[in-house]
């Protein structure tokens, strides 16, 4: 298998002269399970996961996508024509997480993605995930369920990407306990800025609790970016740079209808319009955070 692909910041953040400088400088690779999270919705978490999966898979890397969002949009995209089939008949991540016997092997839920995403397997989500908190409430050590389930699989993949819902639930905690690192997509809004802080607080709690002391924030990147944004919004970008230093990636994914078009055709932007600015941005993102 290829070498693992998590990056750790080795440049002291407070030594960063330019708050908008790329994170990719001065990083060392040490792992491969990456969660995409932000408490704010609509910032491009699912699209980022799908585009990074495409970038990795099309380069011959072995990719696993774990969909932990009850909306199951990543599942629908990766399963293409199967999207409209009865979800209740499909074993998925809900069944794994709620398996009280502990006997269910995670491999029993794997499904190969459609051809648009080469070399990619999926652990599908469905709407039942919306009730998972109630199902897991009585379970001991519920924060570490996904980590334990992933243990026999992780060496089989070059990259494991976890898509999350915009909420700090037991699923987000499970993802961050299982992950080597996390990436935070953001738009330029105050709500999203607050969402990043919430993620940071949860990640700090996970580290200090000993559940995953080595969890690393790979970086924050801006999606839905307009060049002609107002000065007040641009100021928010500077604020992010000051607050997060080198952890603010130089990647700016532009707002574009290309994303919607590619989604409607069931394809990643990287395949649908590889030369488009959006595809190039996701390519840069993958090269910053991927294996």
């Amino acid at each position: 298998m290829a070498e693992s692909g998590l990056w750790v910041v080795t440049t002291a953040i407070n030594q960063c002269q330019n708050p908008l400088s790329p994170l990719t400088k001065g990083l060392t690779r040490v792992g491969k399970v990456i969660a995409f999270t932000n408490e704010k919705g609509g910032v491009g978490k699912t699209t980022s996961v799908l585009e990074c999966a495409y970038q990795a898979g099309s380069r011959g890397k072995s990719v696993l996508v774990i969909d932990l969002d009850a909306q199951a949009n990543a599942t629908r995209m990766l399963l293409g024509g199967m999207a409209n089939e009865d979800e209740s008949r499909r074993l998925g991540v809900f069944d794994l997480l709620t398996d009280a016997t502990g006997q269910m092997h995670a491999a029993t839920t794997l499904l190969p993605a459609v051809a648009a995403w080469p070399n990619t397997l999926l652990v599908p989500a469905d709407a039942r995930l919306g009730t998972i908190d109630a199902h897991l409430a009585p379970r001991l050590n519920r924060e570490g369920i996904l980590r334990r389930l992933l243990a026999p699989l992780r060496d089989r993949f070059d990259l494991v990407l976890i898509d999350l819902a915009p909420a700090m639930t037991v699923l987000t905690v499970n993802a961050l306990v299982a992950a080597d690192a996390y990436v935070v997509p953001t738009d330029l809004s105050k709500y999203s800025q607050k969402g990043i802080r919430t993620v940071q607080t949860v990640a700090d709690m996970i580290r200090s609790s000993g559940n995953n002391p080595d969890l690393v924030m790979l970086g924050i990147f801006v999606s839905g970016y307009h060049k002609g944004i107002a000065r007040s919004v641009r100021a928010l970008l500077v604020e992010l740079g000051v607050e997060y230093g080198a952890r603010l990636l130089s990647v700016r994914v532009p707002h574009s209808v290309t994303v919607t078009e590619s989604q409607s055709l069931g394809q990643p932007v990287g395949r649908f319009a590889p030369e488009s600015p959006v595809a190039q941005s996701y390519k840069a993102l993958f090269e910053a955070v991927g294996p």
Partner: protein
Amino acid sequence: MSNEDLRREILNERDALRAENEALRKALELCRFSIKNENHVSGDVAKNWIEMIDAALAPMEPI
């Protein structure tokens, strides 16, 4: 509950377990078949995934 009822219940539970085990085993075998036949999965990756599926299948012999 009579001994006969109890025996019937045990058998029903065993039937359910056997059916569940069989369904999971079939699902894994279909996944294995699918991986083998997908032309968008490269040789090395498919080989590795099939080993993973086989490792999951090993303890799932028919009950």
